[in-house]
Protein backbone atom coordinates (compact mmCIF):
# COMPACT_ATOMS: atom_id res chain seq x y z
CA UNK A 1 0.00 0.00 0.00
CA UNK A 2 2.73 2.40 1.00
CA UNK A 3 4.65 1.42 -2.10
CA UNK A 4 1.62 2.07 -4.29
CA UNK A 5 1.17 5.52 -2.70
CA UNK A 6 4.83 6.28 -3.31
CA UNK A 7 4.62 5.21 -6.95
CA UNK A 8 1.47 7.25 -7.58
CA UNK A 9 2.81 10.37 -5.91
CA UNK A 10 6.11 9.94 -7.75
CA UNK A 11 4.19 9.86 -11.04
CA UNK A 12 2.08 12.87 -10.06
CA UNK A 13 5.11 14.91 -8.97
CA UNK A 14 7.06 14.09 -12.14
CA UNK A 15 4.10 14.83 -14.40
CA UNK A 16 3.52 18.07 -12.52
CA UNK A 17 7.17 18.97 -12.92
CA UNK A 18 6.90 18.25 -16.65
CA UNK A 19 3.86 20.51 -16.98
CA UNK A 20 5.57 23.28 -15.04
CA UNK A 21 8.62 23.00 -17.26
CA UNK A 22 6.51 23.06 -20.43
CA UNK A 23 4.90 26.24 -19.15
CA UNK A 24 8.35 27.72 -18.60
CA UNK A 25 9.41 26.86 -22.15
CA UNK A 26 6.14 28.31 -23.42
CA UNK A 27 6.59 31.62 -21.67
CA UNK A 28 10.05 31.90 -23.17
CA UNK A 29 9.45 30.68 -26.71
CA UNK A 30 5.94 31.87 -27.64
CA UNK A 31 5.91 34.85 -30.02
CA UNK A 32 3.48 37.38 -28.49
CA UNK A 33 2.23 38.38 -25.06
CA UNK A 34 -1.17 36.71 -25.39
CA UNK A 35 0.24 33.39 -26.52
CA UNK A 36 2.74 33.51 -23.68
CA UNK A 37 -0.09 34.20 -21.27
CA UNK A 38 -1.90 31.17 -22.63
CA UNK A 39 1.12 28.92 -22.14
CA UNK A 40 1.73 30.21 -18.64
CA UNK A 41 -1.79 30.12 -17.25
CA UNK A 42 -2.91 26.78 -18.65
CA UNK A 43 0.16 24.81 -17.57
CA UNK A 44 0.20 26.63 -14.25
CA UNK A 45 -3.17 25.20 -13.36
CA UNK A 46 -2.33 21.63 -14.34
CA UNK A 47 1.21 21.59 -12.94
CA UNK A 48 0.13 23.11 -9.63
CA UNK A 49 -2.70 20.64 -9.27
CA UNK A 50 -0.51 17.60 -9.99
CA UNK A 51 2.41 18.63 -7.79
CA UNK A 52 0.24 19.54 -4.83
CA UNK A 53 -1.77 16.32 -5.23
CA UNK A 54 1.48 14.38 -5.21
CA UNK A 55 2.58 16.10 -2.00
CA UNK A 56 -0.85 15.52 -0.48
CA UNK A 57 -0.52 11.77 -1.01
CA UNK A 58 2.78 11.88 0.88
CA UNK A 59 1.33 13.94 3.72
CA UNK A 60 -1.56 11.57 4.39
CA UNK A 61 -4.55 12.61 6.45
CA UNK A 62 -3.00 15.46 8.44
CA UNK A 63 -3.44 19.19 8.87
CA UNK A 64 -0.85 19.60 6.13
CA UNK A 65 -3.23 18.02 3.61
CA UNK A 66 -5.96 20.46 4.58
CA UNK A 67 -3.56 23.36 4.08
CA UNK A 68 -2.45 21.94 0.73
CA UNK A 69 -6.09 21.61 -0.35
CA UNK A 70 -6.63 25.25 0.64
CA UNK A 71 -3.58 26.25 -1.39
CA UNK A 72 -4.94 24.37 -4.42
CA UNK A 73 -8.35 26.05 -4.11
CA UNK A 74 -6.90 29.53 -3.71
CA UNK A 75 -4.45 29.08 -6.58
CA UNK A 76 -7.24 27.82 -8.83
CA UNK A 77 -9.24 30.95 -7.93
CA UNK A 78 -6.50 33.57 -8.08
CA UNK A 79 -4.49 32.27 -11.04
CA UNK A 80 -7.14 32.83 -13.71
CA UNK A 81 -8.10 36.13 -12.06
CA UNK A 82 -4.55 37.35 -12.38
CA UNK A 83 -4.43 36.20 -16.02
CA UNK A 84 -7.69 38.04 -16.69
CA UNK A 85 -6.43 41.23 -15.07
CA UNK A 86 -3.18 41.03 -16.99
CA UNK A 87 -4.82 40.40 -20.37
CA UNK A 88 -7.19 43.27 -19.66
CA UNK A 89 -4.38 45.63 -18.72
CA UNK A 90 -2.47 44.72 -21.87
CA UNK A 91 -5.54 45.22 -24.06
CA UNK A 92 -6.40 48.54 -22.38
CA UNK A 93 -3.00 49.95 -23.15
CA UNK A 94 -3.33 49.04 -26.80
CA UNK A 95 -1.38 45.83 -27.27
CA UNK A 96 -3.56 44.09 -29.87
CA UNK A 97 -3.65 40.32 -30.27
CA UNK A 98 -2.18 39.20 -33.55
CA UNK A 99 -4.92 37.42 -35.45
CA UNK A 100 -3.09 36.42 -38.59
CA UNK A 101 -0.45 33.77 -38.71
CA UNK A 102 2.99 35.14 -39.13
CA UNK A 103 5.41 34.10 -41.82
CA UNK A 104 8.15 32.03 -40.25
CA UNK A 105 11.27 34.17 -39.97
Amino acid at each position, binding site marked *: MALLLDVVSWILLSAGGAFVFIGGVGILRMPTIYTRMHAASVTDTMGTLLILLGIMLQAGLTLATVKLAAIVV*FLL*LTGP*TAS*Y*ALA*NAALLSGVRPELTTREPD
Partner: protein
Amino acid sequence: MLLLFGIFLLTLLVITAVAIVRATDLFVAVMLMGIFSLLMAANFFILDAADVALTEAAIGAGISTVLLLGALALVPNRERVQHTGRWAALAVVSVTTLIIVYATLDKPRLGDPNAPVHTHVAPWYLEFTPEFIDIPNVVTAVLGAYRAYDTFGEVIVVLTAGIGVLFLLGLPNGPPHTAEDSSRTRTQNLGHHLIPQVVGRLIIPFIVLFALYVQFHGEYGPGGGFQAGAIFAAAVILYALIEGEDAALKILSPSLLKALMAGGALLYGATGLVTMLLGGNFLDYSVLADDAVAGQQWGIIIIELGVGVCVAGVLLTIYHAFAARND
Protein backbone atom coordinates in the same frame (compact mmCIF):
# COMPACT_ATOMS: atom_id res chain seq x y z
CA MET B 1 21.43 19.39 -2.46
CA LEU B 2 19.52 22.17 -0.77
CA LEU B 3 22.77 24.11 -0.66
CA LEU B 4 22.91 23.93 -4.47
CA PHE B 5 19.29 25.07 -4.72
CA GLY B 6 20.20 28.02 -2.51
CA ILE B 7 23.16 28.90 -4.73
CA PHE B 8 20.92 28.75 -7.81
CA LEU B 9 18.36 31.07 -6.24
CA LEU B 10 21.03 33.48 -5.03
CA THR B 11 22.46 33.69 -8.55
CA LEU B 12 19.00 34.56 -9.88
CA LEU B 13 18.80 37.18 -7.11
CA VAL B 14 21.97 38.89 -8.31
CA ILE B 15 20.80 38.83 -11.94
CA THR B 16 17.47 40.38 -10.96
CA ALA B 17 19.18 43.07 -8.89
CA VAL B 18 21.39 44.06 -11.83
CA ALA B 19 18.31 44.21 -14.07
CA ILE B 20 16.50 46.45 -11.56
CA VAL B 21 19.35 48.94 -11.55
CA ARG B 22 19.71 48.87 -15.35
CA ALA B 23 16.00 49.26 -16.18
CA THR B 24 15.22 52.75 -17.42
CA ASP B 25 11.47 52.28 -17.10
CA LEU B 26 10.59 52.59 -13.43
CA PHE B 27 7.45 50.48 -13.89
CA VAL B 28 9.65 47.62 -15.09
CA ALA B 29 11.97 48.13 -12.12
CA VAL B 30 9.01 47.88 -9.73
CA MET B 31 7.85 44.64 -11.36
CA LEU B 32 11.35 43.20 -11.06
CA MET B 33 11.32 44.17 -7.38
CA GLY B 34 8.41 41.73 -7.10
CA ILE B 35 10.61 38.88 -8.38
CA PHE B 36 13.42 40.07 -6.11
CA SER B 37 11.16 39.84 -3.07
CA LEU B 38 9.91 36.36 -4.00
CA LEU B 39 13.52 35.19 -4.38
CA MET B 40 14.46 36.69 -1.02
CA ALA B 41 11.58 34.84 0.66
CA ALA B 42 12.60 31.52 -0.93
CA ASN B 43 16.20 32.07 0.19
CA PHE B 44 15.16 32.89 3.74
CA PHE B 45 13.13 29.71 3.81
CA ILE B 46 16.03 27.58 2.58
CA LEU B 47 18.22 29.18 5.27
CA ASP B 48 15.84 27.92 7.99
CA ALA B 49 14.25 31.27 8.77
CA ALA B 50 10.54 30.47 8.43
CA ASP B 51 9.36 33.53 10.37
CA VAL B 52 11.45 35.91 8.31
CA ALA B 53 10.29 34.27 5.08
CA LEU B 54 6.68 34.70 6.17
CA THR B 55 7.29 38.39 6.88
CA GLU B 56 8.91 38.90 3.49
CA ALA B 57 5.98 37.06 1.89
CA ALA B 58 3.37 39.15 3.68
CA ILE B 59 5.12 42.42 2.82
CA GLY B 60 6.49 41.61 -0.61
CA ALA B 61 3.51 39.76 -2.10
CA GLY B 62 1.28 42.75 -2.45
CA ILE B 63 1.93 45.70 -0.22
CA SER B 64 5.33 46.77 -1.50
CA THR B 65 4.22 46.50 -5.15
CA VAL B 66 1.01 48.39 -4.41
CA LEU B 67 2.83 51.17 -2.53
CA LEU B 68 5.50 51.55 -5.21
CA LEU B 69 2.86 51.68 -7.97
CA GLY B 70 0.89 54.20 -5.90
CA ALA B 71 3.92 56.45 -5.77
CA LEU B 72 4.80 55.81 -9.40
CA ALA B 73 1.38 57.06 -10.51
CA LEU B 74 2.38 60.47 -9.14
CA VAL B 75 5.81 60.85 -10.71
CA PRO B 76 7.23 60.41 -14.23
CA ASN B 77 7.70 56.72 -15.04
CA ARG B 78 10.81 57.06 -17.08
CA GLU B 79 14.28 57.61 -15.82
CA ARG B 80 16.33 60.14 -17.75
CA VAL B 81 19.45 58.41 -19.00
CA GLN B 82 22.60 60.20 -17.94
CA HIS B 83 26.17 59.11 -18.17
CA THR B 84 28.16 61.47 -15.96
CA GLY B 85 30.11 59.79 -13.23
CA ARG B 86 29.10 56.28 -14.15
CA TRP B 87 32.62 54.97 -14.49
CA ALA B 88 33.83 56.56 -11.28
CA ALA B 89 30.91 55.02 -9.41
CA LEU B 90 31.54 51.66 -11.04
CA ALA B 91 35.21 51.78 -10.02
CA VAL B 92 34.36 52.64 -6.41
CA VAL B 93 31.77 49.89 -6.26
CA SER B 94 34.05 47.23 -7.80
CA VAL B 95 36.92 47.99 -5.45
CA THR B 96 34.64 47.92 -2.42
CA THR B 97 33.13 44.62 -3.56
CA LEU B 98 36.58 43.08 -3.78
CA ILE B 99 37.49 44.38 -0.32
CA ILE B 100 34.30 42.91 1.20
CA VAL B 101 34.84 39.59 -0.58
CA TYR B 102 38.40 39.52 0.76
CA ALA B 103 37.04 40.19 4.24
CA THR B 104 34.55 37.31 3.96
CA LEU B 105 37.39 34.81 3.50
CA ASP B 106 37.76 34.86 7.29
CA LYS B 107 34.05 34.32 7.92
CA PRO B 108 32.91 30.95 9.25
CA ARG B 109 31.47 28.73 6.52
CA LEU B 110 27.72 28.54 6.00
CA GLY B 111 26.13 26.38 8.69
CA ASP B 112 29.26 26.05 10.84
CA PRO B 113 27.87 25.14 14.29
CA ASN B 114 30.96 26.59 16.04
CA ALA B 115 30.59 30.06 14.55
CA PRO B 116 30.85 32.76 17.23
CA VAL B 117 27.26 33.85 16.64
CA HIS B 118 25.98 30.45 17.78
CA THR B 119 28.03 30.29 20.98
CA HIS B 120 26.98 33.43 22.82
CA VAL B 121 23.36 34.11 23.80
CA ALA B 122 21.45 31.97 21.29
CA PRO B 123 21.96 28.59 23.06
CA TRP B 124 20.61 30.18 26.23
CA TYR B 125 17.46 31.30 24.40
CA LEU B 126 16.96 27.85 22.91
CA GLU B 127 17.60 26.05 26.18
CA PHE B 128 15.52 28.14 28.57
CA THR B 129 12.56 29.22 26.46
CA PRO B 130 10.60 26.02 27.27
CA GLU B 131 11.25 26.63 30.95
CA PHE B 132 10.61 30.38 31.26
CA ILE B 133 8.00 31.05 28.59
CA ASP B 134 6.93 27.64 27.36
CA ILE B 135 5.88 28.47 23.82
CA PRO B 136 7.18 26.43 20.88
CA ASN B 137 8.23 29.34 18.67
CA VAL B 138 11.51 30.62 20.09
CA VAL B 139 11.55 33.50 17.60
CA THR B 140 8.29 34.84 19.02
CA ALA B 141 9.63 34.37 22.55
CA VAL B 142 12.76 36.38 21.79
CA LEU B 143 10.75 39.00 19.90
CA GLY B 144 8.04 39.45 22.52
CA ALA B 145 9.74 38.76 25.81
CA TYR B 146 13.55 38.70 25.84
CA ARG B 147 13.98 41.56 23.41
CA ALA B 148 10.69 43.35 24.00
CA TYR B 149 12.41 46.76 24.37
CA ASP B 150 13.92 46.30 20.94
CA THR B 151 10.60 45.39 19.36
CA PHE B 152 8.95 48.34 21.08
CA GLY B 153 11.53 50.58 19.45
CA GLU B 154 10.82 49.06 16.04
CA VAL B 155 7.08 49.57 16.48
CA ILE B 156 7.73 53.21 17.33
CA VAL B 157 9.85 53.55 14.17
CA VAL B 158 7.00 52.12 12.08
CA LEU B 159 4.57 54.50 13.78
CA THR B 160 6.93 57.43 13.15
CA ALA B 161 7.15 56.54 9.47
CA GLY B 162 3.36 56.49 9.30
CA ILE B 163 3.15 59.90 10.99
CA GLY B 164 5.78 61.22 8.60
CA VAL B 165 3.75 60.10 5.57
CA LEU B 166 0.68 61.73 7.12
CA PHE B 167 2.58 65.00 7.51
CA LEU B 168 3.86 64.88 3.93
CA LEU B 169 0.78 63.67 2.06
CA GLY B 170 -2.17 63.75 4.45
CA LEU B 171 -5.34 61.68 4.42
CA PRO B 172 -8.63 62.71 2.84
CA ASN B 173 -10.68 64.47 5.50
CA GLY B 174 -14.41 64.75 5.96
CA PRO B 175 -17.07 62.32 4.79
CA PRO B 176 -16.29 60.10 1.81
CA HIS B 177 -17.43 61.27 -1.61
CA THR B 178 -21.13 60.92 -2.31
CA ALA B 179 -23.39 60.61 -5.31
CA GLU B 180 -22.00 63.34 -7.56
CA ASP B 181 -18.58 61.74 -7.47
CA SER B 182 -19.77 58.24 -8.13
CA SER B 183 -19.04 58.38 -11.85
CA ARG B 184 -15.43 59.24 -11.07
CA THR B 185 -15.25 56.46 -8.52
CA ARG B 186 -16.52 53.93 -10.98
CA THR B 187 -13.67 54.48 -13.35
CA GLN B 188 -11.18 54.50 -10.51
CA ASN B 189 -11.81 51.03 -9.15
CA LEU B 190 -12.10 47.64 -10.78
CA GLY B 191 -15.86 47.47 -10.17
CA HIS B 192 -16.69 46.96 -13.84
CA HIS B 193 -14.34 43.99 -14.05
CA LEU B 194 -16.63 41.18 -12.97
CA ILE B 195 -14.05 38.42 -12.48
CA PRO B 196 -11.69 40.22 -10.09
CA GLN B 197 -14.68 41.52 -8.18
CA VAL B 198 -16.32 38.14 -7.64
CA VAL B 199 -13.06 36.38 -6.79
CA GLY B 200 -11.96 39.25 -4.59
CA ARG B 201 -15.18 39.25 -2.61
CA LEU B 202 -14.86 35.51 -2.21
CA ILE B 203 -11.28 35.58 -1.06
CA ILE B 204 -11.14 38.64 1.21
CA PRO B 205 -12.82 36.85 4.17
CA PHE B 206 -10.24 34.09 3.90
CA ILE B 207 -7.37 36.57 3.89
CA VAL B 208 -8.75 38.23 7.04
CA LEU B 209 -9.24 34.82 8.63
CA PHE B 210 -5.69 33.86 7.72
CA ALA B 211 -4.40 37.12 9.19
CA LEU B 212 -6.12 36.29 12.48
CA TYR B 213 -4.67 32.77 12.35
CA VAL B 214 -1.17 34.14 11.80
CA GLN B 215 -1.70 36.66 14.62
CA PHE B 216 -2.83 34.19 17.26
CA HIS B 217 -0.96 31.12 16.06
CA GLY B 218 2.34 32.99 16.16
CA GLU B 219 3.30 31.37 19.45
CA TYR B 220 3.09 27.89 17.92
CA GLY B 221 4.16 28.29 14.31
CA PRO B 222 5.65 30.95 12.06
CA GLY B 223 3.77 34.18 12.49
CA GLY B 224 3.05 37.05 14.81
CA GLY B 225 1.91 40.63 14.86
CA PHE B 226 4.16 42.00 12.13
CA GLN B 227 3.10 39.41 9.56
CA ALA B 228 -0.57 39.45 10.57
CA GLY B 229 -0.76 43.23 10.36
CA ALA B 230 0.68 43.17 6.85
CA ILE B 231 -1.68 40.39 5.70
CA PHE B 232 -4.69 42.22 7.13
CA ALA B 233 -3.59 45.40 5.38
CA ALA B 234 -3.32 43.41 2.14
CA ALA B 235 -6.93 42.27 2.55
CA VAL B 236 -8.19 45.84 2.96
CA ILE B 237 -6.05 47.03 0.04
CA LEU B 238 -7.62 44.31 -2.11
CA TYR B 239 -11.03 45.57 -1.01
CA ALA B 240 -10.05 49.12 -1.93
CA LEU B 241 -8.84 47.95 -5.34
CA ILE B 242 -12.05 46.16 -6.30
CA GLU B 243 -14.66 48.35 -4.57
CA GLY B 244 -12.95 51.72 -4.70
CA GLU B 245 -11.12 53.95 -2.26
CA ASP B 246 -14.27 55.46 -0.81
CA ALA B 247 -15.82 52.12 0.09
CA ALA B 248 -12.65 51.12 1.92
CA LEU B 249 -12.47 54.45 3.72
CA LYS B 250 -16.09 54.04 4.77
CA ILE B 251 -15.22 50.84 6.62
CA LEU B 252 -11.95 51.98 8.12
CA SER B 253 -12.30 55.75 8.24
CA PRO B 254 -9.20 57.98 8.35
CA SER B 255 -9.77 58.82 12.00
CA LEU B 256 -10.12 55.14 12.85
CA LEU B 257 -6.89 54.38 10.99
CA LYS B 258 -5.07 57.04 12.99
CA ALA B 259 -6.55 55.57 16.15
CA LEU B 260 -5.36 52.08 15.16
CA MET B 261 -1.86 53.36 14.45
CA ALA B 262 -1.51 55.11 17.77
CA GLY B 263 -3.59 52.59 19.71
CA GLY B 264 -1.42 49.63 18.73
CA ALA B 265 1.77 51.31 19.90
CA LEU B 266 -0.05 52.58 22.97
CA LEU B 267 -1.23 49.07 23.85
CA TYR B 268 2.37 47.91 23.72
CA GLY B 269 3.63 50.75 25.88
CA ALA B 270 0.69 50.46 28.29
CA THR B 271 1.50 46.79 28.86
CA GLY B 272 4.94 47.90 29.99
CA LEU B 273 3.46 50.48 32.34
CA VAL B 274 1.03 47.95 33.79
CA THR B 275 3.85 45.55 34.56
CA MET B 276 5.66 48.42 36.31
CA LEU B 277 2.53 49.25 38.35
CA LEU B 278 2.25 45.60 39.34
CA GLY B 279 5.76 45.73 40.72
CA GLY B 280 7.83 44.29 37.88
CA ASN B 281 10.22 45.90 35.45
CA PHE B 282 9.12 47.64 32.25
CA LEU B 283 7.77 44.89 29.93
CA ASP B 284 8.55 42.10 32.42
CA TYR B 285 5.33 40.15 31.99
CA SER B 286 5.87 37.68 34.85
CA VAL B 287 3.69 39.79 37.14
CA LEU B 288 0.67 39.75 34.81
CA ALA B 289 -0.62 36.44 36.18
CA ASP B 290 -0.18 34.40 39.31
CA ASP B 291 2.06 32.02 37.44
CA ALA B 292 5.16 33.64 35.94
CA VAL B 293 5.08 31.45 32.81
CA ALA B 294 1.39 32.17 32.16
CA GLY B 295 2.10 35.88 32.70
CA GLN B 296 4.81 35.76 30.05
CA GLN B 297 2.40 34.12 27.62
CA TRP B 298 -0.31 36.72 28.29
CA GLY B 299 2.19 39.51 27.83
CA ILE B 300 3.37 38.14 24.49
CA ILE B 301 -0.19 37.74 23.20
CA ILE B 302 -1.08 41.32 24.21
CA ILE B 303 1.99 42.99 22.76
CA GLU B 304 1.72 40.95 19.54
CA LEU B 305 -1.83 42.24 19.22
CA GLY B 306 -0.55 45.78 19.69
CA VAL B 307 2.12 45.21 17.03
CA GLY B 308 -0.43 43.77 14.59
CA VAL B 309 -2.87 46.64 15.03
CA CYS B 310 -0.15 49.25 14.70
CA VAL B 311 1.41 47.70 11.58
CA ALA B 312 -1.98 47.26 9.88
CA GLY B 313 -2.92 50.86 10.72
CA VAL B 314 0.35 52.32 9.45
CA LEU B 315 0.41 50.34 6.19
CA LEU B 316 -3.22 51.20 5.40
CA THR B 317 -2.67 54.86 6.24
CA ILE B 318 0.30 54.97 3.90
CA TYR B 319 -1.68 53.26 1.13
CA HIS B 320 -4.63 55.64 1.46
CA ALA B 321 -2.33 58.66 1.61
CA PHE B 322 -0.82 57.75 -1.77
CA ALA B 323 -4.18 56.79 -3.29
CA ALA B 324 -5.80 60.05 -2.17
CA ARG B 325 -3.10 62.05 -3.99
CA ASN B 326 -4.01 60.18 -7.15
CA ASP B 327 -7.41 61.84 -7.52
